[in-house]
């Protein structure tokens, strides 16, 4: 048993912190909020030079083939800076799905381009009637000869406006069981019938879009993985993305704790630093407690994805996602309270964290959805000791 980061992981984290400190100060985050695309070619290229896009892509497709735990080192640092742009959607949603079930031709077409920073992608999954549930997929993909015709609406699709490829989940057979009848498609958003509209969002560091499909005709070469059996892939992709997003949450939760603590040391009221008062002190201690807790849970979840069995990986992903995302929200809210009036202004950086935290909490299944998953898995599999 060894629950510690190895040298490579520590180095990745250190490099990422150095890079983001330089390239992603708060002014950059603010600029990207206003920016329609939400990122710059310049930073994207530099990240590709650091091999961040290549980390999870197999060596045979121009990547490095590293563990999710390794990528988490970068994601935590991104969480610390509320890093804007389509990295998460490209790497953890699109690329993971293509790696998991793409044909050789599909992998050849997309993966080297993603690895070297030339292509971006995302996952079109959520539907208006599904709420925060990830397993509600009802959009129809009707078979017409060898083709499929997609019609329907996907909401809260991250970064679709800058994507070169959408992984789209649709129903090729009607029904409610996600295990039957869901098929994944690779869709070029410039295809006729596809329209992408960015929405104004609270967390404007992460753009969300509505994607409308109006009779979009796709050949069978667009099917990603097996027909009707898309949920198997999607479930696995989602679990990894939930862990990745949790890594972001842990980084963010730690950073806001530091911001609040630093402020409590220098802000003078009643002739003393406010951190002297136990009411403030205990709030800071609570933030530390939760951030540490979230980190311990996150390590378990990431390890379970990389090396655990299927049952362990599933229950851990849901436990981790619900806990870490709520922790981030708790800590961001706590930091605003410690910073007082200052924390409530747009001038302060804390609001970025709160907005991101709330976005992360609801994305990829909200905490209530995941606790229900956990309960279901405990009933089916028992407690894995």
């Amino acid at each position, binding site marked *: 048993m060894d*629950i510690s980061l190895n040298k490579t992981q520590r180095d990745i984290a250190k490099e990422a912190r150095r890079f983001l400190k330089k390239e992603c100060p708060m002014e950059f985050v603010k600029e990207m909020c206003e920016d329609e695309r939400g990122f710059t070619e310049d930073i994207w290229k530099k990240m590709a030079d650091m091999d961040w896009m290549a980390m999870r892509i197999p060596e045979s497709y121009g990547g490095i083939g590293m563990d999710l735990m390794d990528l988490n080192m970068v994601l935590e640092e991104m969480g610390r800076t509320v890093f804007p742009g389509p990295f998460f959607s490209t790497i953890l949603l699109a690329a993971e799905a293509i790696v998991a079930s793409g044909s050789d031709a599909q992998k050849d077409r997309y993966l080297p381009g993603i690895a070297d920073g030339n292509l971006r992608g995302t996952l079109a999954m959520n539907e208006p009637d599904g709420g925060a549930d990830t397993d509600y997929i009802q959009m129809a993909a009707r078979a017409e000869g060898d083709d499929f015709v997609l019609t329907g609406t996907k909401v809260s699709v991250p970064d679709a406006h800058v994507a070169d490829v959408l992984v789209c989940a649709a129903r090729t057979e009607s029904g409610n069981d996600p295990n039957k009848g869901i098929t994944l498609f690779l869709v070029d958003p410039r295809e006729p019938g596809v329209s992408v509209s960015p929405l104004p969002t609270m967390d404007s560091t992460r753009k969300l879009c509505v994607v409308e499909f109006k009779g979009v005709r796709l050949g069978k070469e667009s099917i990603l993985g097996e027909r009707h059996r898309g949920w198997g892939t999607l479930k696995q992709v989602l679990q990894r993305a939930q862990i990745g997003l949790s890594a972001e949450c842990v980084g963010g939760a730690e950073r806001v704790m530091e911001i609040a603590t630093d402020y409590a040391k220098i802000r003078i009221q009643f002739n003393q630093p406010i*951190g002297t008062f136990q009411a403030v002190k205990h709030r800071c201690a609570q933030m530390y407690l939760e951030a540490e807790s979230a980190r311990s849970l996150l390590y378990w979840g990431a390890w379970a994805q990389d090396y655990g069995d299927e049952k362990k990986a599933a229950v851990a992903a849901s*436990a981790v996602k619900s806990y870490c995302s709520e922790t981030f929200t708790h800590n961001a809210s706590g930091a605003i309270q410690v910073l007082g009036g200052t924390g409530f202004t747009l001038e302060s950086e804390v609001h970025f964290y709160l907005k991101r935290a709330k976005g992360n909490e609801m994305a990829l299944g909200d905490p209530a959805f995941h606790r229900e998953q956990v309960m279901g898995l405990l009933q089916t599999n028992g407690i894995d000791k």
Partner: protein
Amino acid sequence: MDFRLTSEQEDFRKGFVAWLEKNIPDDFDPSRRRSYETEEDLKRAYIDFQKRLSDGAYAGMHYPKEYGGQGKTIVEEAIVLQTLAATCFELRWPGVITHGMAVPVIYTCGTEAQKKMFLTKIHDGTQLWSQGFSEPDAGSDVANTSTLAVRKNDHYIVNGQKVWTSFAHVSDYCLLLVRTDTGSSKHKGLSYLLVDMSLPGIDVRPMTQITGEADFNEVFFDNVKVPVDMLLGAEGQGWQIAVTTLMFERVLGDVVMGAAYEKKIEKMIAMAQLVKRSGRPALEDPIFRQQIAGAYIEVQVLKYHGLRSFSRQLKGGVPGPEGSVGKLLWSEPNQRLTEAALGVQGIFSQIMGGAPWSIQDGFWQFDFLRSKGNTIEAGTSEIQRNIIAERVLGLPKDVSRASIK
């Protein structure tokens, strides 16, 4: 990173589980909240079982053989303790202070003679210990200890009063925190004495807890003559001994509690299948499902926090003030967990064990009440948060405690 045991450790664990199946006493019934009616019965059962553990080479895994241990590593100890916590928590209860505090403190700070005198007897079950820390005016403010030990020739003459002294009524010895330097204040001048509870002048009065049980006591010391060779460490070192030694043990404690709580989650799920709401099992109610899953997740936090700290310790790390995180993680979630359990019981939540309609033999009624002590014993939640804020995060001490070093 690797969360798995090695194959040798896994074999060891399986071997112990198999051994345990054959050696659990016949009168121990895990479906009951208490298998033993009286404190004396429980003490006897503990002693017999500890003797079996010792005979089976499972007592004190990481302590040297010459002190009644097995000469293995702390990983084997953790495996044994986790397994015991998950199977027979009650049987081990009288020994909580003995094994969790007395053994590590004596082993780390005791003289050769003290180690020889006590450790083997503890491991083979013949000796139980209590811990005399708190006093009426020294609760969270432990450093305010005023029980005096004045040296006179070959003895210390001890006078004073301890309170909340766990297991004093069933223990043979007490780990007693005293002030040896009358002119000293606060942390300076505190020392540890190893006190034979049968000495004249010691008066133990059990205190009844809100659970109706009496694990705690008031203990009065009236001119008790303790031989000087029962001083642990040097005079004035009591505070350091208390702080440092116990931090190591705390980490092991978190790992053990995680295992015990996982068992409780299983029990809670079984209960929610049994108890009905509107004619259907409570386990089908979405609110209870959320609460049970939430409790499970908090237990996983404790478990993996414990393993992470334990792993750090295995690599030679010295546990520090961040140990307070573990204390908070086994105390506060246990209150939420037991609240949720009583919530599932609804109208049956008032029915005590043994009565008609009682659920799971009153386990949760007891556990709910007992959990209220968790955030007080072993340093209150407030003290733990002060420690985190001041010693981990570096926030300034408040004015009233600023003069305390």
